[in-house]
């Protein structure tokens, strides 16, 4: 990963120095080793804080909506999964493709600090990844963990490949994961309705409406969200004390249905640890099974499953029957 980082830094320098791009979007060191944040670098000087490591899980594509409106070209480092969101945003005319220089970078799966902490470790100062083994350094010493157990949920089932690249920095071949990303959804489907209700009620009750999921979601990029718009009739008001979070999450999942690329950012950023990606994946699974396989963001053109139809489409009751 260090090698990749230095190559990225090198490219960023060249691009900025040559004036080819006006800014580079990447990650900047945080207060700790595990909280790098997305950042825009406009000069070589600023690059001193540039970082790319196992905690750089953030999807940078959404920032490009604003960046592509700015003067000059913007270079961006995109991991495989980020490129799908990028495509989707180009398709929706949110990103001006011509003004973006995409540097595809390898990913190798990112780590979840929450999961590391859950293993009883605190004051983490650094990690060293060696295949399946992760050496975690803390102020209190070193521990070795299995990588599978501490990767981000979104990385655990990811087999995505770069869909867009103007150039690439890929030094290692990423192992192909033989995992079913719908396993958790299927498990829920196997439950009784009561069990499912109980599960979701518990999960969604944790929601504090911080809007982090909405803010991070590349598909949730509306200039004005319906939940902030009194004209929409769903904006939260004082007298809506019932069903509010549920309504929010159902509508959110519905609004991104057919457009969600399954980047998993919603679950990554949720401070309450709600597995929000399982909502989106249900739509993805239903769409795949009912209307044929569809991966949002694979192409920057064409319709989405909910904006097209076939005369032979199943009736809702038959879709339910086909499912559980």
């Amino acid at each position, binding site marked *: 990963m260090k090698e990749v980082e230095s190559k990225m830094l090198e490219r960023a320098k060249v691009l900025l120095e040559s004036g080819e791009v006006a800014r580079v979007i990447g990650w900047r060191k945080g207060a700790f080793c595990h909280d790098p944040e997305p950042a825009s670098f406009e000069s070589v000087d600023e690059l001193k804080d540039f970082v790319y490591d196992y905690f750089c899980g953030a999807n940078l594509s959404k920032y490009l909506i604003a960046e592509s409106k700015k003067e000059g070209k913007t270079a961006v480092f995109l991991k495989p999964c980020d490129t799908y969101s990028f495509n989707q945003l180009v398709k929706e*005319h949110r990103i001006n493709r011509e003004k973006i220089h995409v540097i595809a970078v390898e990913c190798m799966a990112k780590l979840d600090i929450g999961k590391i902490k859950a293993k009883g470790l605190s004051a983490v100062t650094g990690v060293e990844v060696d295949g399946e083994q992760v050496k975690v350094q803390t102020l209190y010493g070193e521990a070795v963990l299995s990588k599978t157990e501490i990767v981000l949920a979104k990385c655990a089932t990811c087999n995505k490949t770069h869909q867009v690249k103007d150039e690439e920095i890929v030094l290692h071949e990423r192992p192909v994961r033989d995992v079913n990303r719908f396993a958790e959804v299927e498990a829920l489907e196997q439950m009784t309705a009561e069990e499912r209700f109980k599960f979701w009620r518990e999960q969604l009750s944790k929601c504090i409406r911080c809007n982090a999921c909405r803010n991070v979601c590349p598909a949730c990029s*509306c*200039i004005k969200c*319906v939940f902030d*718009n009194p*004209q929409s*009739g769903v904006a939260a008001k004082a007298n809506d004390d019932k069903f509010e979070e549920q309504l929010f999450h159902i509508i959110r999942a519905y609004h991104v249905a057919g457009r969600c690329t399954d980047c998993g950012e919603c679950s990554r950023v949720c401070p309450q640890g709600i597995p929000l990606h399982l909502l989106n994946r249900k739509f993805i699974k239903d769409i795949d099974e009912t209307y044929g396989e569809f991966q949002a963001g694979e192409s920057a053109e064409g*319709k989405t499953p909910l904006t097209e139809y076939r005369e032979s489409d199943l009736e809702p009751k038959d879709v339910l029957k086909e499912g559980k």
Partner: protein
Amino acid sequence: MQRIGVFICWCGSNIAATVDVERVADAVKKDQGVVYSATYQYMCSENGQQLIKNAIKEHSLTGIVVGSCSPRMHEATFRKTAEAAGLNSYMVEIANIREHCSWIHKDREEATEKAIILVRTAIAKVNLNAPLSAGESPVIKRALVIGGGIAGIQAALDIAEAGFEVDIVEKNATIGGRMAQIDKTFPTLDCSACILTPKMVDCAQNEKIDILSYSEVEEVKGFVGNFSVKIKRKARFVDEKKCTGCKLCMEKCPSKKGLDEFNMKLNKRPAIYIPFAQAIPNVAVIDPEQCIKLKTGKCGLCQKVCGAGAIDYTQKDEYIERGYGAIVVATGFKPIELNAFNEFGYSENQDVITSLELERIMNAAGPTNGVLLRPSDGEHPKVITFIQCVGSRDTSGCGKPYCSKICCMYTAKHAMLIREKYPDTEVHVFYIDVRTPGKNYDEFFRRAVEQYGVDYIKGMVGKVYNENGKLMVQGSNLIDNEQVLIESDLVVLAAAIEPEPSVRKIATLLTASIDTNNFLTESHAKLRPVESPTAGVYLAGVCQGPKDIPETVSQASACAAKVIGLLVKDKLKTNPCVASANETMCNGCSQCASVCPYGAITYVEKELRVDGKTELRRIASVNPAVCQGCGACTVTCPSGAMDLKGFSSKQIMSEVEEICKR
């Protein structure tokens, strides 16, 4: 804040017997916005309407709710009433307390309670209503007819007759279409050219009609009343204005290898040619594939002999753009390709021909000057076998699933004409069914059998093969339960017909819908059979479905009537309940446009001032003249920027909330 009047109708006893109307009027008296409520025996009567008008004036009402029968019955009535009293007609909402309440419930208490809820729901909605006014859009008083066959010709003549200008765009060098290729017409056996060519001449001479031959529609913008169409005028290398049609160039042209399309490629024609003697315009065209001058730069004979100086080898495609109020699609048909039907040996045997080829062979101006000679050796065929339903009613995937409709009649015609002209010829017809619905049609078919002795065999041919120069036709005779083998000299296939392939492009340009067989879809199969679902677009002839000449002409005239009805209007009133996008909220994501069945949504780049900053944004723009108000876009829009006037999200939500209050 609205000032709402509520008017509860008794509908005699229809409502009042089950619903306590007084209680309803009383219950809503204090509801939000309500300043007046009343009941009356027949609200739709003259007196009832007067009551509403008076109340509107006396109480300065800004909105009214009428609790009465279905809005499908009297919404228009009460809208007019409101308008007469100076209230915007869209400030009227109807609570359906008859069909949806008093007529289906027996319990008076229950029905009254429900009626109160329904009226309250309407009050909640009207509280959010805003005055709407039907927009107006101007009508360009000129029509475009795409296709210059008999359908297009008839439509153009009828429209021009009413005094409107019409342009006919024809992709070939002459108008006339398929009908010009036909020898005789059933069931009267008139000479096709004799009835068609005078109409073609009428078109040419009518000052209201502009024939744009050798041209194609390239782009269509706009909407009903206001289309803007880009037309490509293909280079014909002959100046249309100068050419006199003397045909001297045709005689002198040294390249004579081109296949004569008009004669179904049965003979050759020069590289410069006029498609047929009565072509309109009677102007030559150069086939650039065959012209030696255009291919090698050498020759130029035609230019030398042309006294009018009409030949221009440097001519280029030209584009013109014109505005139209209405468009008639009359793109016609072609016989299907027969490559998939090996069993009939069409590609291997010259003497296996299609019925349209036979038309040319039978025609006095055709390749054999009207003498029935077979293509292979120019001999007169003694035994002729016709095969019907070649590729029609075929669900195996090789042909077309539909009945081509015209083949039974023209096959009877051919059989009859041959027997009349050459009584020594033996004529057999293989048929599955003989379908002859139409005036004098069955009589015509029976004449072929009874008077002319044509041998109709109920059955189908399984194989046609060549044996010692004879065409062996093997088929079944189901009546006699036999397999027959007919030694024939000529085999004629009644090939299925299909829409002219260019119609697909036209349909896309017009956002007109098309079915799986490439036939254009009409707006309503029974009640709007000549209108496309796209407003201002009309359908004539086979592009809409198989039909014969009389039907085509009727449909073309019907189209013309519709077009005239549109063009006589100076302005079109548009439905005010249309979608519109809130500019500040629109993401410009294009999802709405992808579900709009009318192509009413386009995108504009617009500078917006938001939070003190100026931003260039991509914004959806709904053309209110094209939008029909279905609302598909509103649900697709994630930000809710797209809303529907008269049925806004907030209005519907308020109705939902009111119902849920109980």
